[in-house]
């Protein structure tokens, strides 16, 4: 089975073709990603209207390139998948309409993919992982722990009460003058820093639930910056590195604590220790991955993380989520509504039914 996947929900325009491999897992036949980083950099964050315009300018070309690289014509596909939410709706609509139009012309099933399900199922593409597993989804817009029991079957253990963890990285990078995007910038700066120099809080650590909170930590970093500036003038490189390292260490400790809680709950409910899967853009951070590997090992679980290029937004994860749904007999009608908000728990497991897509005329 071969599926084209289209992703336009934030600041990456992406298209990819994947196919199911014999046995478990899948194979990526092509994976084109165009980052809009430079267009948004002057604003220190993603500007929705700039993103939507850029998606329209490029998505059809990326689809053509992905098809050419896969060596396939549209007629040879088994389906077309596109992110229809959650995300910045102007951009989501561009990708969703692109996918629907291609499916309509070639009489292929259309799959309306939840962007978060794309992240959640990536390890089944890359590692052929079986259900169930515990998922820590950490990105610029999301921070949540979920039990993944099947395609469309998610139970949320906890999520952030305020900022997403990637958002905290972006804000701290801004405070420290490290540039945008914040994740890689903070990680680079932290590599040479002393994580013990600044005492920062570990919000939510020790609480019996599995929720997160990062706004207090961000405020603490701001206060530490102000204090340091007051004492010694503008931050030097050393202070920036030490603050970045102290912040990253605080995040790591919080993620460890929350993941440990969730691993215990998962083991009690599902009778197995993990595996713990970490996905989303923040999962590309090596130091956080190492911290999570420790906590997984302590619980007797393995940590599985997609390669960094498949942690950030991409089309392969959308194609794969579409493929997983299609092979369970699910497809979506061409009047499927794109949506800015679409929690994973609102998804349902595909029920095999006669397909509802419109056949080619």
């Amino acid at each position, binding site marked *: 089975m071969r599926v084209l996947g289209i992703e336009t929900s934030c600041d990456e325009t992406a298209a990819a073709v994947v196919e199911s491999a014999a046995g478990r897992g899948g194979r990526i036949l092509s994976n084109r990603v165009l980052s809009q980083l430079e267009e948004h950099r002057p604003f220190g964050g993603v*500007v929705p209207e*700039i993103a939507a315009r850029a998606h*329209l300018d490029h998505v059809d070309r990326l*689809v053509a390139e992905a098809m050419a690289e896969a060596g396939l014509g549209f007629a040879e596909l088994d389906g077309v998948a596109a992110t229809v939410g959650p995300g910045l709706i102007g951009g989501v609509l561009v990708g969703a*309409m692109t996918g629907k139009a291609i499916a*309509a012309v070639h009489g292929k099933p259309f799959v309306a993919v939840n962007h978060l399900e794309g992240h959640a199922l990536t390890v089944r593409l890359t590692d052929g992982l079986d259900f169930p597993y515990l998922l820590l989804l950490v990105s610029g817009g999301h921070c949540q722990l979920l039990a993944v029991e099947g395609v469309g079957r998610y139970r949320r253990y906890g999520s952030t009460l305020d900022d997403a963890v990637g958002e905290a990285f972006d804000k701290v990078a801004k405070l420290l003058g490290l540039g945008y995007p914040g994740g890689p910038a903070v990680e680079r700066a932290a590599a040479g820093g002393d994580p013990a120099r600044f005492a920062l809080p570990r919000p939510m650590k020790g609480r019996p639930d599995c929720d997160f909170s990062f706004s207090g930590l961000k405020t603490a970093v701001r206060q530490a910056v102000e204090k340091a500036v007051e004492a010694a003038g503008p931050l030097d490189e050393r202070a920036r590195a030490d603050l970045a390292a102290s912040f990253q260490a605080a995040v790591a400790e919080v993620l460890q604590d929350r993941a440990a809680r969730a691993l215990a709950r998962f083991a009690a409910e599902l009778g197995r220790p993990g595996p713990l899967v970490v996905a989303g853009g923040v999962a590309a951070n090596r130091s956080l991955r190492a911290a999570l590997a420790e906590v997984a090992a302590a619980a007797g679980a393995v940590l599985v993380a997609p390669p960094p290029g498949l942690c950030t937004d991409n089309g392969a994860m959308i194609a794969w989520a579409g493929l997983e749904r299609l092979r369970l007999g699910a497809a979506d009608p061409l009047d499927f509504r794109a949506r800015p908000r679409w*929690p994973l728990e609102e998804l349902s497991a595909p029920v095999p039914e006669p397909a509802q897509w419109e056949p080619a005329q």
Partner: protein
Amino acid sequence: MSDPGSAPRDSAAAILLAFDCSGPSCSAAVARGGRVLAAAFETRPRGQGERLLPMVGEVLAEAGCGYADLAGIAVTLGPGSFTGLRIGLATARALALATGLPLVGRTSFAVLAAAAAPARVPGERLLVAIDSQRGDLFLQGFDAQASATEAPWACAAREAAARLEGPLLLAGSGAGRLAEALAAQGRSCRIAEAAQLPDAAVLARLASLAPLPPAGGPPPAALYLRPPDTTQPAPPGRGAR
């Protein structure tokens, strides 16, 4: 279905699919040689992304043809709602890619001017005014042949009224507001009632009478007439958004 690449290109037989969702409506039509074979129009301020492709399927079926019978795709480029014109253009570009057909773009001004032109009486200036939904109007003037006489401009209704001279025939979603502003200055004008919102039937007729561009050329650009709003948005998500 037959191979989309084998669609007829002979212009007399050329069947064109056209659609618009640049305003608070959604429409689709099929035409050949200036004759509309099938058309649908719905007033619909939201949800064009849900309605557009099913509507396209319906007009194709009514015209008795499929994607493989088409010679080209036509779409409005705006100005209008940013989201709406992108829904139309993203769909049109993807259809062109998937069928290998040429893509034709016309501005919403041109489509509205063509719709209003039959109502024009000699001596009148035809002016298309599209409500920007952000307080002001997008404007462009046209001559007796419905050819544009000036570049598109954006302006508040009151200022526009002060700048306009002579007898006027107004078209577009902003015609009413502009007429009110003119009346407040003691001026009268006429409104082309049949040309309030862009209609794909008009676009299909126009585009099916003109030569088609080559397939695979650079796609027509969206006409936004306004730079992106770059005020910093609220964070994209809180937990499960």
